[in-house]
């Protein structure tokens, strides 16, 4: 059976890893900071580029992982500081600017070395087909850790995302909690990007959350709907690209297209629900 022989770990990755991303998606969609994941991934990538150039020019081992972690934290600080309420400047604009500047900065930094191109590609264009046992288990362990933090502190995080006014009234230090939120989110996004690539991260984050929001008001129900959508679409995308041998579809883009189809189906269901509900 080639399916489990060759594709066991990609399949397990698709089943085990997106769950936490779907949860973060609920927050991200509610806060209206849709592109923050791409910006965080790009900042982490910039960190790797900086580490590579330092390594190439000053010798010694380049601490790429440490540097990407450091930059992720910088990004988290940046995003928690820019959660302000400006009448004319939405936070999404700041996120876009951070994204494009860090992407351009990465290119500028990389022009000083040759090695970086591959590193940058492997960082932003993960390929699910090539994922192995160690990577899946290591990432899963990280996600379990982060899930425990969020489970313990869920009231805080949910209030900050879903009831911002209440949180402000209560005098909660939004900045501090946002920082924790963005650091954990950044860790999830950067590790997920390395396995699945940028497009899939975005799809896993946003589409299940939007489907949940279309079909339910309750957070728990939304989460369950989101998990179902992510699981079915992810597995279907992987199987389609593997099993239709004549077409030899690239896995990531196929799955992203399927997410588009899933969203259409969910919108149809939502429309029916509105129409027939009293």
């Amino acid at each position, binding site marked *: 059976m080639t399916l489990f022989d060759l594709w066991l770990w990609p399949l397990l990755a698709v089943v085990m890893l997106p769950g936490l991303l779907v949860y973060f998606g609920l927050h991200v969609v509610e806060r209206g900071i849709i592109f923050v994941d791409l910006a965080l991934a790009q900042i982490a990538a910039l960190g790797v580029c900086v580490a590579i150039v330092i390594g*190439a020019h000053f010798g010694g081992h380049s601490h790429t992982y440490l540097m990407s972690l450091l930059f992720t934290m910088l990004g988290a600080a940046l995003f928690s500081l820019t959660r302000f309420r400006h009448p004319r400047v939405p936070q999404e604009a700041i996120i876009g600017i951070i994204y494009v500047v860090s992407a351009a900065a990465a290119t500028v930094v990389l022009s000083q070395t040759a090695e970086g191109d591959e590193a940058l590609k492997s960082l932003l264009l993960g390929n699910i087909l*090539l994922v192995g046992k160690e990577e899946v288990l290591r990432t899963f362990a990280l996600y379990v850790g982060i899930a425990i933090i969020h489970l313990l502190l869920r009231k805080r995080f949910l209030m900050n995302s879903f009831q911002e006014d209440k949180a402000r009234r209560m005098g909660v230090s939004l900045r501090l909690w946002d920082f924790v939120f963005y650091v954990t989110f950044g860790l999830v996004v950067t590790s997920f990007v390395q396995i699945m690539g940028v497009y899939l991260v975005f799809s896993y984050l946003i589409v299940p959350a939007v489907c949940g929001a279309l079909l339910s008001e309750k957070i728990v129900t939304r989460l369950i709907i989101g998990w179902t959508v992510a699981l079915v679409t992810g597995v279907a995308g992987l199987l389609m690209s593997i099993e239709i041998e004549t077409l030899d579809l690239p896995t990531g883009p196929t799955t992203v297209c399927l997410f588009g189809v899933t969203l259409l189906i969910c919108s149809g269901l939502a429309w029916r629900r509105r129409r027939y509900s009293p």
Partner: protein
Amino acid sequence: MFQKLLTLAALLLIPTAVHAGSGLKIVATTNDYAALARAIGGDRVTVKSLAKATEDPHFVDARPSYIVALNRADILIESGAALEIGWLAPLVKGARNKNVLPGASGRVRGSVGIQLLDIPVELDRSQGDIHALGNPHFLMDPLNSGIVARHLAEVFCRLDADGCPSYQNNLSRFSQMLNTRMKIWMETLAPYGGTPIVTYHNTWRYFARRFQLQAETFLEPKPGIPPSPPHLARIIEKMKAAGMKVILVEPFQSRKTAEVLAGHTGATVVDVCQFPGGLPETPDYFSLMDANVNSIAQALGGVRSN
């Protein structure tokens, strides 16, 4: 949702194609090795190339079929000079096939028996995207293709003894053809001996050495690094000073950059390719080299008559 599950079930039921043929199943990293394997293997082998002819062989993105093909392969042919260093190892790891692991009898290194150029004295990435084992674009010297063909015939014979007479036969036909064509190519390019040409990447060193051209000027400031404005300005000066009138570009390289330079210097941009299939009507190695040699000669000839 129900319909979706149905589609899913249908997909699972599509039977996986089984290769029943007894011949050798060969995977080549790039189309040049695939073409040589077809020439030597003939009907007895099935050959698949991973990188497309128009794709940059330094970067190849995995598809499911690549892993499946590697999983079923008897033989994997690679350059042996780290051309595929950025992408081959994880594919082979994912394929779980002991026939094609490094060091296995089915893992063929094209560079065996070939004298590589540009072997770096000092390994330092600040010099660009250099290949530690030397310049891997050696098949552009036609005589090296003869060495690789011989090597392939040896490997095929070892792994499929029954087919050996056929492989030997194909090899001698290939070698004869190579001798004939080589004379023609040498004659075609002979009038331009010593002429300097510009190339995008350091791909044409072996070709230039064989045909007595000079290919020491590159649009890339360092291998793998995209052209920067100051570097291009220096190249323009150099081209004007040395009267260089031909720029070679491959399908996956920036033709636009070459055209801008051509606009400044009056040079001609020539489309060439290392891989059979990368230019129109070049199904095999000979037709590809015909096309390369003829377009380069034509461009150099046009310069002369001006």
